């Protein structure tokens, strides 16, 4: 039993934070505080922008989406698969409310960069 528990935990990573099923992958993220707001850098290589949803609520920024494998064409056959293709969710909390901030985002070398500009009249 102990062995199976250990084995389980090798893969489970931080699943204890999971809130519900269907969100199985947790991309790594960096958060910078900039003079005019925040810079959030998320490891989301291979995820197309249209598959990402952003949501702001109070001081919480929620990223959710799905990495889909679009390279596998008809007649292809996998030899090895190590990239996780599945739903993901990332919840980031900020020290202050970010509601109403203006958002910019773009992909840069497989990293999703999100810039949050504080509203002048916060």
């Amino acid at each position, binding site marked *: 039993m102990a062995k199976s528990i250990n084995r389980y935990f090798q893969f489970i990573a931080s699943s204890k934070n999971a809130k*519900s099923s269907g969100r199985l992958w947790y991309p790594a993220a960096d958060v910078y505080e900039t003079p005019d707001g925040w810079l959030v850098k998320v490891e989301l290589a291979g995820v197309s922008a249209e598959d990402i949803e952003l949501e702001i609520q109070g001081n919480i920024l929620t990223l959710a989406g799905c990495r889909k*494998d679009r390279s596998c064409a008809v007649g292809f056959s996998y030899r090895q698969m190590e990239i996780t293709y599945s739903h993901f969710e990332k919840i980031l909390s900020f020290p202050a409310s970010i509601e109403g901030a203006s958002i910019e985002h773009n992909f840069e070398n497989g990293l999703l960069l999100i810039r949050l500009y504080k509203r002048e009249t916060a």
Partner: protein
Amino acid sequence: MAEENKQEQGQEIKSGNQGKQFEIAILPLQNTTLFPETVVPLAVGRSRSVKAVEAALATEEKLIACVTVKTPEIQGSDAKPIDLYEVGTLVNVKRMMRNDDVMQLIVQGVDRVKILYWSQEEPFLKAKVEVLPELEVVDHEEVEALKRNVQGMIQEALAMLPQVPPEVRMSVMSQNNPVQLSYFLASVLDLGVETEQKMLEANTTDDLLSLTHGALAKELEIMQIRSKIATEAQGEMDKAQRDYILRQQMKAIQKELGEGDEGGEKAEAAQLRERLETADLPDEIRKEAERELKRMEQLPQAAPDYHVIRTYLEYVLELPWKKSSEEKLDLNEAQKILDEDHYGLEDIKKRILESLAVVKLRPDSKSPIILFVGPPGVGKTSLGRSIARALGREFDRISLGGVRDEAELRGHRRTYVGAMPGRIIQTFRRVGVNNPVLMLDEIDKMGNDYRGDPAAALLEILDPAQNNTFRDHYLDLPFDLSKTFFIATANQLGPIPIPLRDRMEIIQLAGYSDQEKLNIAKQYLIPRQIKENGLQNDQIEITDDAVNLLTARYTREAGVRQLERTVGNLARKVALRVAQGNTEKVTITANEVKGFLGSPRFYPEEARAELPAGVATGMAWTEMGGEVLFIEATMLPGGGGLTLTGQLGEVMKESAQAARSYLWSHATEFGINPEMIKQNGIHVHVPAGAIPKDGPSAGVTMASAMASLYTGRKVRSDTAMTGEITLSGLVFPVGGIKEKVLSAHRAGIRRIILPERNESDIEEIPDDVRAELEIIPAKYISDVLSAALETEVSGPKGENYVIPETKHSDGTNEPLIAREK
């Protein structure tokens, strides 16, 4: 097209909506159930499964549904739709690695799905499925209670699993979502396909938690039992090891002390085995002993039974099962030994020699069982010793006086703590041979109570027909007593149960006469006491008349024990003088005895010079020998009936009544006026008043005393009498003649009236005594009276008492009976 479909559906799944339906590849699983949220590695090798996985990997989201096979016997890849459960798990393939033809997968459960219908069987299974609703976590109290219980059990389980790393513990314990906790436990624990499937199919949190709870409880119990078994095994090993070390130390200590009989219990058992092998045992006994020894060898030395068995075996080995002492029976030698050891007792010696003769002629015959009955100090025990000496056998004695428990003779069963064999078997171990002369002393003094009757046990021991297989309770093995020469002694026959008496040859030893005592004193007692008190023969002399004085006035006994003590007393007084330097020879005569011993202690009843009318001399038997006693009768003028005093027993009272009735009915024959008997009461007293008396033998004496009173003729004072009377005037024989006559002789009586049928007993009386006596046999009371009463009327005749006037109808004053005559 299909791809697009998938894409769409994928989007829908992502949004977390349940109830969506789509077509998907199915991976049948064997012996495993996957749960949402759990991550599991899988290996897929069969081509059908590989094709299903490949199809799944071809999709954008790498989804596949895993469904478990109902019966474990069926290979997952060969499974047909009918072999599969209807609810499975939608999983996301996270990693994949091909290794030759085997695909190593790591999958993570996403949702529960229900198969709606099968759309494809070849080349892989495909079905239309519907996503089942996620279990909602409601803060229901029952759910909370169950959850806490489950967490408690997990904690318990983890306590028994020290190898689980702490971070794992932490994460398990901090899992607050009961559904996820349940799924996790279900995938971790090996609960069996059926239970796992049930948990997967559970549609409410409540059901799921209950199932988890039950499964976990069961698992926990198994773990507890396993750990208990492990602990116990450990404990046993520890104890064994500890014992071993202690024993080694003990051996070392014993060796240092020089007590080290190499190797404790093994050696002990081996020693016993060696003894058993060399011992001369009957086959039956050997078999039993070997069985016990085997049992003992299997026991640890510390076991309580070990010592019980060891003691038992030692006992068995020490008993003389076959060992007998050699017999060297020479009858002449035996006669010599008996004569050496005992004076007189010619008759008894003759009977003993007769018994020995039989033993000599038929060595295999049953040994006789002799019972010596007689007063204390007459030499019963020493006769037994002499017999043993004459036979050349071992001698031992068992005193039965006061024994009242059957177990004393026959032992206690081995189940009792501290059980021992009975006295009989103990004696055999002591003497070491199986044919000793065994004396059972004081057989008449055994008691009995609710614990059993030792006399009943003796019945078996003393029965030659069955004592060859005597079973002691402790040994529980048949021991042969039939070669034993049993001699029992008793003071009285009365208390010995008749069946027991019946088994023995009874030899009566009467007391010694004064003459015999004198001889015994001269030949045995005085020389022995001189020696014991460290005197020389030329330093003391006790004259015959001094000895006679000692027997008559300083002792009162049938035997010679007190006499010997008194002689010893004299010897000590002389020894004191000698030790003080006065070495002159001391001659003790009758006159000097008083100076040494003080005043005489006894004043035996002596024949009275003259007896008044109404007093007769009787003779009584006591345990100490015989005695004379005087029966007194007196008239109670004007009184009535018969008064009897002097602690008389029932039988004696009745014989007094018989005497009176006889005299009354035959009054005229003896010249007695019946009116006198009728009108006056009579009182009979037998001194000494404090000593209880009983028995019929005073009948003639009472009759004589009453007749003397009524007739006024005195009873001759030199005459003593004994005998039972009947109403028809006959005189019946009585016992103890020898003692009675001896005591009467000692008291100075020279005429003895005995029942005619006791004549045979007269021979027992020593010749020297008999020569001085006139013995008158009596057949009827009239014989007694004519011999006992003087002829002339010298006392106050009964007629002198006031007799109320009795006028007969014819006016005469004569006695009625006389007149009728």
